[in-house]
């Protein structure tokens, strides 16, 4: 184990994941520092979402481990990972479609609240206080992402951009240390993307570290401190956004070319 660095929030070591004969992630290692926005890019099928799913416990890793906040995440279930402080959104929005926007965010508070069956039935002072606090916090978060005017509308009736924002609010409701966003700008127009950039900056200012999968290069390059590039499940490059932009291997992976063909043949 390397020297414990208090500046590192998430350390990924040799993450490997196989689906049948397909190697989705091969020995991927990186580390995310506290307070930064860390970009994760790569062509389609590079393994970005697989990495998210392994990180959040939806799939078990076939090799390697994540060390989050000084503790290993190996073998944890998704709900345990959320309790440790990693919240995520999904590439194809997964809201509780038939519940109101407010209820969606209130469900996000589940992991940080305690009321059980007894409290629910007896509705004692503590439970009532907790319910009030849940609702208040949910409203605050809706206002924070700017969907508070639609608080009582069903999640599925919200505009697409608002659904993306609501999903972020729901994730923030779990009080995460690391917020993992899977293509939040997908399907957004330029204005909405600009708004999202502002929101990401605001979230960073509240002290939450962000891991961002994104295809919108302008967004990634303008908002991310450092970027990890995956290609065919392997780490292609890692570094500050400006460096990645000039990296020849990355350019080749995205635009094609002789080097890429060579790489692919080997893979």
């Amino acid at each position, binding site marked *: 184990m390397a020297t414990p660095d208090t500046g590192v929030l998430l350390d990924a070591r040799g993450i490997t994941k196989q689906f049948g004969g397909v190697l989705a992630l091969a020995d991927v290692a990186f580390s995310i520092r506290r307070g930064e926005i860390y970009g994760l890019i790569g062509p389609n099928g590079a393994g970005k979402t697989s990495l998210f799913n392994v990180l959040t416990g939806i799939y078990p890793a076939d090799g390697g481990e994540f060390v989050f906040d000084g503790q290993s995440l190996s073998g944890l279930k998704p*709900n345990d990972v959320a309790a440790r402080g990693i919240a995520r959104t999904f590439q194809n929005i997964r809201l509780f479609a038939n519940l109101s926007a407010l209820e969606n965010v209130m*469900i996000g508070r589940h992991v*940080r609240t305690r*009321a*059980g069956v007894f409290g629910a039935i007896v509705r004692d002072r503590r439970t009532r206080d907790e319910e009030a606090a849940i609702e208040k916090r949910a409203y605050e978060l809706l206002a924070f992402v700017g969907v508070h005017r639609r608080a009582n509308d069903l999640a599925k009736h919200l505009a697409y951009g608002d659904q993306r924002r609501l999903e972020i609010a729901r994730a923030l409701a779990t009080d995460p240390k690391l917020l993992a966003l899977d293509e939040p700008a997908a399907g957004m127009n330029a204005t909405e993307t600009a708004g999202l950039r502002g929101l990401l900056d605001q979230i960073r200012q509240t002290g939450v570290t962000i891991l961002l999968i994104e295809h919108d290069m302008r967004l990634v390059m303008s908002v991310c401190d450092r970027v990890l590039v995956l290609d065919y499940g392997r780490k292609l490059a890692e570094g500050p956004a400006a460096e990645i932009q000039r990296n020849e291997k990355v350019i080749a992976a995205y635009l094609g070319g002789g080097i890429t063909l060579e790489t692919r043949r080997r893979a």
Partner: protein
Amino acid sequence: MQLALPIAKVRHPALAFVGIALLAVALTALPFALASIGTAWVRITNLAILYCFLALGLNIVVGFAGLLDLGYIAFYGVGAYVYALLASPHFGLHLPFWIILPLGALVACIFGVLLGAPTLKLRGDYLAIVTLGFGEIIRIFLNNLSRPFNLTNGPQGITLIDPFRIDGYSFGKVHSLGPLTFSTPINYYYFLLVVLLAVVALNLRLQNSRIGRAWEAIREDEIAARAMGINTRNMKLLAFAMGASFGGIAGGMFSAMQQFISPESFVLVESIMVLAMVVLGGMGNVFGVIVGALLLSFVPEILRYTVGPVQNALFGRTLIDPEVIRMLLFGLALVLMMLFRPAGVLPSAVRKRELETRPAQAATGGRS
């Protein structure tokens, strides 16, 4: 937010109060009115209230948590047999009901967890098949556990089960209070009514709580629910356990009221009937489920007493066997109901919205 009871939403509190008072008077007077038509109707009402318990219990599993359970009647059977074994000459045990009813709920609850644990990863059709099998296994056990050790007395069932007794006041005997006669079914009616009110309050509170929201989240999207930190395993087991407990309590009361039970009371058709009550009334809506249970309990009985006389009045003789036409009409009513009110008589707000907007949802690529 719908944290408060729906009653509290009424604009005129005075009117609501008068309404509740009138309802209370009506419910108090009901058994005597029914007894004047025939004691059988009080008995039918009592059974209808028992079905309300069952439907409310199943609603937790199916309506709140979205887990399709086709073997629910097994828990009713477990509760009934726990009561019967501990308060009958079968083993010579005669424990008081206030000990056995909670015990029956506890045993049913354990069976609920036993059913829940291996089915945690199943949903929809697959879960339905496993629960169906579970219900049948329990019934077959009840039928065959007379050898080598006579636990359930097999298909003959258990007879001479003790009625409820509170401090010398036996529910099984007729009591007089001034001009009023409290017959056995009337005694049970009041007991059932009080328990029903408690169960309804309990369900409403559960629904609008952290637990209720977690169940709804699981019903809507299990993967998202887990990613939000909800322990889906525990929450599903809790839903099964709570639902089963309600079934167990209902079973105990059934035992005491009937004073005789046999495995025949706990067949698959009963499970399906209770599920039909939940679906027809309005899945997820506590009041809808009660309406569904009352409708499906009373309509067949009303038909039983009217189909014959109506035929005689119209044609002068009985053309079709009333028993046949009764179930035919009943089935037809169910089909028509589902065609014209697919979300149920009193749909839950959420289900209603779900059905209304399905095409729009499909268009936006939402998950159903």
